[in-house]
């Protein structure tokens, strides 16, 4: 139930794997990671939410914060998520319109490839 974070870069796209609960308790760690990635010049981020059990508005805040940071560098922050309980939170808050949300890492990579 704690947060596990992992990331790797494939062809200019940095995939961030998130597992566990993103809430007021763990969100600071995700924020640090996103800031760190951007500071190191990774401006195209794909956050895989498939193993996220719980997401609250603090977690949303961190994702939005990350989005703002990469946009300042003409970058992107997109999500992989098919879980209804998590999608619901993006829908409630209107954030489905703000984030690109894909059904799988592959789908996101393809879309990203086309954009380049």
């Amino acid at each position: 139930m704690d947060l596990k974070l992992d990331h790797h870069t494939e062809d200019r796209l940095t995939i961030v794997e998130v597992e566990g609960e993103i809430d007021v308790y763990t969100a600071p760690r995700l924020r640090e990671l996103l800031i760190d990635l951007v500071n190191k010049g990774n401006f195209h981020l794909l956050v895989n939410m498939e193993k996220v059990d719980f997401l609250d508005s603090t977690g949303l805040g961190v994702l939005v914060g990350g989005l703002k940071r990469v946009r300042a560098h003409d970058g992107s922050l997109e999500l992989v998520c098919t879980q209804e309980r998590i999608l619901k939170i993006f829908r409630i808050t209107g954030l489905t319109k703000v984030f690109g949300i894909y059904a799988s890492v592959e789908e996101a990579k393809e879309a990203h490839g086309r954009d380049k």
Partner: protein
Amino acid sequence: MATVELTFSALPAHVRTARLVATAIARRTGVAEALLDEVRLAVGEACSRAVEAHRVHCPGEPIRIELCDESGRFEVTVTDSAPSDDLDQAYNDEEGPPAAVNGTALASLLPADTLMSGFGIAVIAALADDVEVYPSAKGLRIRMSWPAAATGFATA
């Protein structure tokens, strides 16, 4: 008549305890399984909001959450002691409250990273079956409720 009351200091870890307790009692009280996710999230939002507000304004004060079943409803009340005026103030220090949600323009309207309180309330409003927010000079009280089994706690 609150049958369970939890008081905790303003630490993020305790929000998890509050979620855990609320979900467990909701289940026991007979709230439908399908609604338990909503209870967990809404209660978490209300407590996160309270913790963030206390950390800014009164880190030493405890936050209170009351849980009770009354005539077939599971009711949760979260009470904080952070003055509401100051909370508005905190918004102004950032980039204004994220009230209007309109597409891609949103991101620029949002407060930096933290204090997603406006979102929190939106989430609660969307998830709780019934919500009432009582702002006062002494703090904010959020009361939410969901339908539960008529018998509730008393059943053994």
